[in-house]
């Protein structure tokens, strides 16, 4: 089966739901010096509210890039009018369907449609920098493989820093509420006795739980998890996934998780495979 044949332009959704996240024709190319490295080739995917979707793929398949683009950390490639030409070798691909391979270099033919990411009907790709900041602060929560906690801050401060960023100067008025919410989250994760500890004093599993608490402190609707168990042993990873599942139920979260581990992906409502920047049927 070729990549072109297996590509799904839009993953089917349960018929009664309108998607919270809709990704259309997403393309992304990185530049390494003068060399262009295409990562995503017209990826499209829908995620329904409260749905948990796992993006499964090997290293370098573009999973994290997809997550960063959906989270508004990065922007997709600009729309190019010259899409008939192969983006790797410049071969004229007129007549080929998007996703089919270039006869010259076997590089997938990109979609000619403009890349779009919608969150709750809002076009993320059209947002200004300030709007993207607000989007990241209010609507999205990130969980990273390597936790990415701020080493100088205590556990509690690491969680509340998200609220500080969201509220800006108005944080003073919301500080008590934010701190209480942060404490509640940390207590729910069994970290009540660790509030004043530094990240370096915590185990990997504890750090990841702090990172999840930080991601949830602003009550986002979308949780983006990038290999959340990738740095943990199997048992701790399972605990983290259990915790994430509970939270999703409790807060009605929509979750997009990328992983290379099929066992982890199985925990999601739906699994989408990504191979060389192209979505494959699960």
């Amino acid at each position, binding site marked *: 089966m070729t990549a072109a044949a297996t590509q799904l332009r839009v993953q089917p959704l349960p018929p009664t739901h309108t998607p919270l996240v809709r990704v259309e024709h997403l393309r992304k190319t990185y530049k390494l010096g003068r060399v262009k490295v295409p990562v995503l080739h017209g990826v499209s995917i829908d995620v329904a509210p409260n749905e948990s979707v796992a993006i499964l793929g090997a290293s370098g398949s573009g999973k994290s890039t997809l997550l960063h683009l959906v989270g508004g*950390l990065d922007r997709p490639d600009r729309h190019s009018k010259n899409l008939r030409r192969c983006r790797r070798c410049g071969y004229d691909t007129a007549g080929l369907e998007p996703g089919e391979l270039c006869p010259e270099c076997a590089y997938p033919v990109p979609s000619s449609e403009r890349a779009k990411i919608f969150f709750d009907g809002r076009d993320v790709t059209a947002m200004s920098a*300030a709007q993207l900041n607000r989007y990241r602060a209010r609507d999205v929560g990130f969980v990273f493989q390597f936790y*990415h906690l701020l080493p100088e*801050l205590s556990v509690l*401060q690491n969680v509340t*820093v*998200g609220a500080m960023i969201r509220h800006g100067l108005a944080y003073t008025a919301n500080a008590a509420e934010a701190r209480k919410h942060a404490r509640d989250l940390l207590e729910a994760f069994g970290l009540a006795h660790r509030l004043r500890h530094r990240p370096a004093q915590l185990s990997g599993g504890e750090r990841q739980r702090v990172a999840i608490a930080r991601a949830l402190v602003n009550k986002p609707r979308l949780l983006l998890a990038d290999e959340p168990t990738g740095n943990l042993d199997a048992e701790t990873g399972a605990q983290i996934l259990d915790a994430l599942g509970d939270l999703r139920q409790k807060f009605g979260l929509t979750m997009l998780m990328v992983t290379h581990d099929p066992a982890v992906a199985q925990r999601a409502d739906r699994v989408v495979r990504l191979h060389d920047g192209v979505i494959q049927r699960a």
Partner: protein
Amino acid sequence: MYQALLTRKYLTSKIMPLLAMVAVLLSVATVLITWSVMGGFLRMLLDSGRVLVGDVTITWPATGFAYYDELVDDLEKDDLFVAATPVIEYFAQIQLPDGRPTEVYVKGVDPEGFDRVTGYMAHVWWRPMTEPTSHDEHGEDWRLDPTRQGPLAQFLANAKSMTRSDDAAPARPAAILGIEVTNFNQRESAGIYTPFNPVRTLPDGTTEVLPIFMPSNGEIILTVLPPAKGGGIVAEPVTRSIPVANEFQSGIYEADKNSVLVPFGWLQSLLNLGEARRVTRPGMFDNVIDPATGEPIPAPVSGETISPARATSVIARARDGANPDEIRKRASEIYAAFAKRHAGEVPSASAIDVATWEDLNRTLVAAVKKETGLVLFIFGIICFTTVFLVLAIFWAMINEKTRDIGILRALGASVNGVAGMWLSYGFALGLVGSVLGVVAATLIVHNINAIHTWLGKTFGLVIWDPRVYYFVEIPSKVVPVNALVILLAGVATCLLGAAIPAFRSARMDPVKSLRFE
């Protein structure tokens, strides 16, 4: 809010920024200490200079001008001036007891009025002393000897009256010499003087020690060349012997080396500047016809008038804090009104010389000012390297914190927010460093003399030698405005150093930052 939190955390948990803070502290302290000492030196110089001329002097040299008492009254009636007094200033040669001649400026002053204007009595050297001066730690001051307190009290009284009475003889007008005029006083490193007996060299190559202490039994022979009488061109030198009442130390070496104070009336008389009967003498060929004989006879002396006494200067003291330009302007206005009343009798307002002490010593003051500016400039340039130090440290810190920047961006922090965080960090660092620098400089300046003494004792290091600088004490006052200016400059330095790294951090790609290893 997160900026404040992280700034506080970075300030208290990182060693590198502390180094930047120390650099700011040292820079601020160095500049402030330099400015305080050099500025203080200039202030001391100006204050010392006023010991001889007050705040302003109105001068018509050589012949002097009349009605000076009226001008003194005019000045004292003005709100700007608190005291004024006439002075006669003239060039003279004196011969010292050991036979050496030396050139001096002799000033005829009224001791009471001169003290009101200049406060010179506080600078009279030979006076009773019970406590040693601050630098005289071993109490070696000649004036501290209990057996000398009586004579010293007499010397001080002599200075007040400008007279001296020897061996129950009637009091004679006496001079007060600058402490360096005679070279009979040895200046010690503690800033005190020890008198010694002068030694006279004799023609046969031998020497003779003279049992003379100037305020006690010393006399000088003073020679002046008064203005020629009647506008003639031949001047006759006048020589008088005058006892010495005391010596003074103004703090300005030139003044202490070249100035001699004598009673006003005594010098006025010597220079023929006193009140005098003036007549109009006929010319050599002016004849009149004798009514009795009808023969021409030489014209008689006629038109007898009284020529008022004159002084070469009137000096005045302004109220504290008055601006030199304002003082000069007001004194000129007062003299202009005075000259208008005595038109034709005194020099016109445009001809008279009205000058402040700074004007009279423009070269010296300008040199010290320029030196202060130059030193500050050089130190400023050296301290400017702090900008690059802060820049380098911030650059390294931001490199180290690249991932943190990515995390903050992922949490929704804006580009400006991240840049602002580093700028506020730079500001906090600069503020803390500068405040500590000002505090350190203030402590050092306030204790600079004690520190200097300790350095001298411990390492034999004498930076401020009173024999060279003439002031016993190193200036030890910090001007608050200067401290504020330097504090702000220190903060600006840090902000400048932090600006480029902050801009760079703001431009970082958050995705690359998160992947930074």
